């Protein structure tokens, strides 16, 4: 097993380097022939993608192209009908979602699904606990875990939320909740981070903040983003894949994709 469970506090060497000098070969995330239908309606059809370690990948496509379904398949929220998902070269297709999280896969959601009656600090603590063995401890009060608290506060500081740390999630703004999502994903020290429309519903300033937030994430983390806002998204991406009706229509660099006639057709109706 090259991917042993992570130590609660330590960082982790990325798989690319684990594999003794073959970093250029092992993709951080590799999807092969992934398919899923709902009641006979195909949502994702034979998608194959390779995402290199440290890459910023943008997934484009009109509504219903299967982008979020693809994320759900990668994280194991839903089972694929066929196809393989590899994380750092390891086949994770049959692992349950929490095991995939332990192997370094984190995500944010398009619709906010946080713990709304709890504080921001508690939300973040849960995220830290999720990848720590102490999540099974039934007797030690969580309030005495100063180490978790400090790490949670540091993360909140990093995304500029430390002054609202003790506030209930339901009493914070939408933009703050979006930033908390990012902090919770980062708390897991992921090697691959899936971002589902992180800019959706944000104001102009909040977008700028979010953009800065994302650009500060180190290159050890590979990122895949679904986004409709091309202004912010294009500047983020190294490579782009365009999904259409559940299939990869075009894949390539920014210029290649923007120049592609089929993409123009979908987006401009030309």
């Amino acid at each position: 097993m090259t991917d042993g469970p992570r130590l609660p506090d330590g960082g982790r060497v990325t798989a690319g380097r684990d594999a003794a000098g073959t970093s250029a070969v092992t993709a951080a995330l590799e999807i092969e022939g992934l398919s899923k239908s709902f009641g006979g309606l195909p949502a994702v059809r034979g998608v194959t993608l390779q995402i290199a370690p440290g890459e910023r990948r943008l997934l484009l496509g009109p509504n219903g192209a299967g982008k979020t379904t693809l994320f759900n398949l990668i994280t194991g929220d839903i089972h694929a009908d066929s196809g393989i998902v590899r994380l750092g070269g390891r086949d994770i297709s049959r692992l349950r979602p929490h095991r995939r999280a332990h192997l370094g896969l984190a995500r944010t959601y398009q619709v906010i699904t946080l713990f709304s009656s709890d504080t921001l600090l508690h939300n973040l603590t849960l995220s830290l606990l999720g990848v720590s063995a102490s999540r099974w401890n039934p007797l030690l009060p969580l309030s005495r875990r100063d180490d978790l608290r400090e790490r949670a506060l540091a993360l909140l500081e990093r995304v500029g939320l430390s002054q609202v740390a003790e506030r209930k999630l339901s009493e914070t703004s939408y933009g703050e909740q979006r930033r908390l999502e990012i902090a919770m994903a980062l708390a897991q020290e992921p090697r691959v981070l899936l971002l589902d429309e992180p800019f959706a519903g944000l104001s102009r300033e909040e977008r700028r903040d979010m953009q800065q937030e994302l650009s500060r994430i180190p290159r050890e983390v590979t990122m895949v983003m679904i986004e409709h806002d091309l202004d912010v998204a294009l500047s983020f991406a190294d490579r782009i894949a365009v999904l259409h009706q559940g299939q990869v229509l075009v894949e390539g660099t920014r210029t290649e994709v923007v120049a592609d006639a089929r993409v123009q057709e979908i987006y401009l109706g030309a």
Partner: protein
Amino acid sequence: MKRAALLALALAVLVAPAILPWDFYVNIATQVLIAAIFALSLNLLVGYGGLISLGHGAFLGASAYAVIFLTTRAGMAQLPAAACAVVFATFLAALFGPIALRASGLGFLMITLALGQIMWGVAYRWVEVTGGDNGLSGFTRPQPFGLDLSSPHAFYVLALLVFGCSFAFIALLVHSPFGAGLRGVRDQPRRLRALGFDTWLIRYAAFVIAAFWAAVAGVLWAYYNQFVSPHVLSLTNSAEVLLMVIAGGAGTLFGPVAGAVIVVLLKNVASAYVTRWMMLLGIVFVVIVVFMPEGLVPGLARLRRRSTGGVARPRTEGA
């Protein structure tokens, strides 16, 4: 200051029955404690796990039957019999858990109800072992280390000790990382999974732990009544304990205890005047669910916050 006064009052209320001379009230206090342990255990599922069980009586009943059977029919000594009974009922939960936890929400409620009925059916029909409708009797309270527990006062003290242990354990559990995970499973199971929690195993562990404390309550129940019949496994009994949890306030520490006080008192007071406990139970059930769904303890806490004008503290607990 106020808190210390409240604590002193609570202690006085708990200790009083051990000293006061009226056997009738001491016995009721004992009943309350046993019911409270039972309700606290169910609250782990209902309040913290969001899993509404209508078959929790199965574990109290299984353990009560087991301890009486093992001592009176199998000739086992009291203490090992009690331990075996608890292990037996907990093991039963370990078997039932995977079936019940194929579903959550309504499905869980219906499957636990059905599983509870199986236990009732076994007790009722398997006459050679369970004595059928007549149940098992001829059981006496134990005399651990030469202490005589046959007096109401001595038995009250035992029940109080066990209650203290269960309350402390559950209080620790709900504030622990595991407890945080359990509440997370209730609120956002999908998100919690994505964060690395094994939601199924958390629910399963909670199910087995809840059954363990129900089994402990079952042993006390058997000691107290010195008799067991299929009624302990009836749907009425599972509904009664669910009512305690909901009436007191699911997902709070003190709610189930308050609920146990209310239901046990109601039952004893009502039986002095009317014989229609089941009808009363039904009426209270409907009234509570329709008019006071959040339960007594959270309701009172909200009133108090309003009257003192204090800012609502961020509450991590809540149904």
